[in-house]
């Protein structure tokens, strides 16, 4: 009980502290902190237009956060989700070049599956390098991400380039029938539903199934996993592949629902923001949903801050950085004995309080 209170109170407290500190930071630059907070809220959740923008950004964040959270539950720190997203997008856009894709829902499923396979294989490779060669997965996943971006740029500007795109090299657009549309005529596309389903489904998988439980044992206590004879390598590869598939799906959805083709604006840092979302959600897939919406909101509010207050577009990144640092630092408060601290404070403030004639309650 105490634990679950801390699980929610610590990140929430850290987020509030991060917003305060961010306010102080913009105040140093001569910008009103109150106005900044109001605009952050308005730009994220102020009206239906903001909500659409927020939810549109939350969809890929949920999926890239899963690419951090699932391997993390198996004990791996994977930070190369950006690479899986980029390759997933590339695979989705490239599929019609390789095989005939029907211009209907079947085609949509096919491009999404192509993205998932590409992303899953990429992150599973990082897991395999660790299990079979002892290569640190944090570093290898990041190197793989940079490699993926190099491959992406090479193919998009080279063999896959649509000759009609002059200024902004892109692949040929997907056919109309394959594209993913908005939900009920809004700008919020079905990718959001896919993200929520993935979070809920994988959350349930970890919580109630035998294989999900085994993954948590492998991550939580490798020694025990070895003693009871769990196939650690297989489970780790499974967690990596599932996580990578989610990030790859995010890339495919970005292509099919937002950009219609693969081009360099896909490399927008969703993979890195996903790391933050996963850490704040404490690697819990279900908690990822609200956190991704919150950070999608901050991302959406970024352009409003830029327009109204003339803040640089990186201000949201600063806020994210501060939030991440404080969330990690807040872990230090977890085992603090709050009751004893309260007693101590009361005792030390007692004489002062009575001197000023107040009751030290």
């Amino acid at each position: 009980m105490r634990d679950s209170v801390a699980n929610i109170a610590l990140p929430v407290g850290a987020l509030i502290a991060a917003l305060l500190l961010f306010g102080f930071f913009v105040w140093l630059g001569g910008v009103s902190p109150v106005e900044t907070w109001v605009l952050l809220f308005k730009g994220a959740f102020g009206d239906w237009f903001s909500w659409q923008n927020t939810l549109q950004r939350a969809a890929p964040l949920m999926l890239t956060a899963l690419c951090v959270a699932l391997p993390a539950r198996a004990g791996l720190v994977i930070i190369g989700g950006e690479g899986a997203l980029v390759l997933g997008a590339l695979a989705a856009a490239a599929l019609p070049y390789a095989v005939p894709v029907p211009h209907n829902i079947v085609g949509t499923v096919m491009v999404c599956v192509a993205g998932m396979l590409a992303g899953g294989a990429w992150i599973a490779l990082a897991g395999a390098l660790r299990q079979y060669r002892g290569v640190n997965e944090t570093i290898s996943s990041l190197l793989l991400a940079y490699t993926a971006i190099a491959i992406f740029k090479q193919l998009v500007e080279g063999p896959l380039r649509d000759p009609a795109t002059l200024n902004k090299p892109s692949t040929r657009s997907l056919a109309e029938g394959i594209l993913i549309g908005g939900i009920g005529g809004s700008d919020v596309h079905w990718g959001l539903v896919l993200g929520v389903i993935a979070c809920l489904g994988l959350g349930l998988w970890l919580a109630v199934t035998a294989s999900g439980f085994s993954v948590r044992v492998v991550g939580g206590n490798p020694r025990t996993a070895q003693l009871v004879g769990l196939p650690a390598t297989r489970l780790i590869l499974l967690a990596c592949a599932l996580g990578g598939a989610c990030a790859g799906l995010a890339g495919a959805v970005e292509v099919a629902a937002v950009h219609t083709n693969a081009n360099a604006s896909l490399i927008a840092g969703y993979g890195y923001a996903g790391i933050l979302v996963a850490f704040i959600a404490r690697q819990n897939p279900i908690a990822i949903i609200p956190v991704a919406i919150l950070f999608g909101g901050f991302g959406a509010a970024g352009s409003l801050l830029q327009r109204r207050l003339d803040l640089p577009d990186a201000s949201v990144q600063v806020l994210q950085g501060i939030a991440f640092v404080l969330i990690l630092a807040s872990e230090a408060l977890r085992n603090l004995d709050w009751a004893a601290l309260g007693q101590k404070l009361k005792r030390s403030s007692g004489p002062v309080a009575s001197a000023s004639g107040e009751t030290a309650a």
Partner: protein
Amino acid sequence: MNDVLLPFFAAILGGALRVGVPFLFVSLGECLTEKSGRINLGLEGVLVLSAMAGFGGSYLSGSAWIGVLVAAAAGALLALLHGLLCSLPRVNDVATGIALMLLGTGLAFYLGKPLIQPQAPQLPPLALGNWSESSVLQAALQVNPLLPLGIVLAVLLYLGFARTRWGLLVRLAGDSAAATKALGYSVNSIRIAATAAGGAIAGLGGASLTLFYPGSWNEGISSGQGLIAVALVIFARWSPLRCVGAALLFGGAGAIGPALQSIGISQGYYLFGGVPYVLTLVILVFTCKPGAVAKGSPGELSSVK
């Protein structure tokens, strides 16, 4: 034949000497940090922030060397934050590094917005190629003046680790926290000091990114050099001297694409841009062994276990 090969190899050499300099400083900084028993993935953030700070310092003061000092100071400050955060109970150094990577790049882009347009005073190149007749070789040997400093620093670090009391203390903290405590030293203080000093060294790498050719500040200034440094240190087996060779090798690998382009081959330009990353990965695959601790690694390091 010679008309093609000479410019090609001159471009690779020039690229190695130019692109290798930031790698050298970041890997030396990471080496010092890891010797004390901590890993700093946040050096990527340190590099970008100090690149911006160095450029800004040079622009505002009118002196590139003041820019270099500002860059080192900015690097030390951000790394100090890493050192302090990691000293808190239950705070993991890998996760903190990722957070500082985000924070450092965010701060650099935020504060560096007004610096994208202007030109700042640059460090004067050292012309080491005057003995040669060939103009391409002369151009390739226009060396960053921070490169000799980096090599001196590598030798000093090597001697420092081997011969001095301070070096011994850093290695002690890195190899056995218990032994350090038993001798009455504070493990955390040593690690915080080593992390901050490592950040200052990495900051020099940031300065060499923006204060030497091509010499401008933009948001794509670093492409993961700070993270590659972590792999470079493993490759260099935690020896400052081997860091020099590793950094130049990586600079050369990164220069293959532009060198090919300079002799008229632009096929696969982006693929060659990925060579340093693939090379790092291949080196890691061959130098790491499953279940075994890497040779020469500090005993307290969490990342290599």
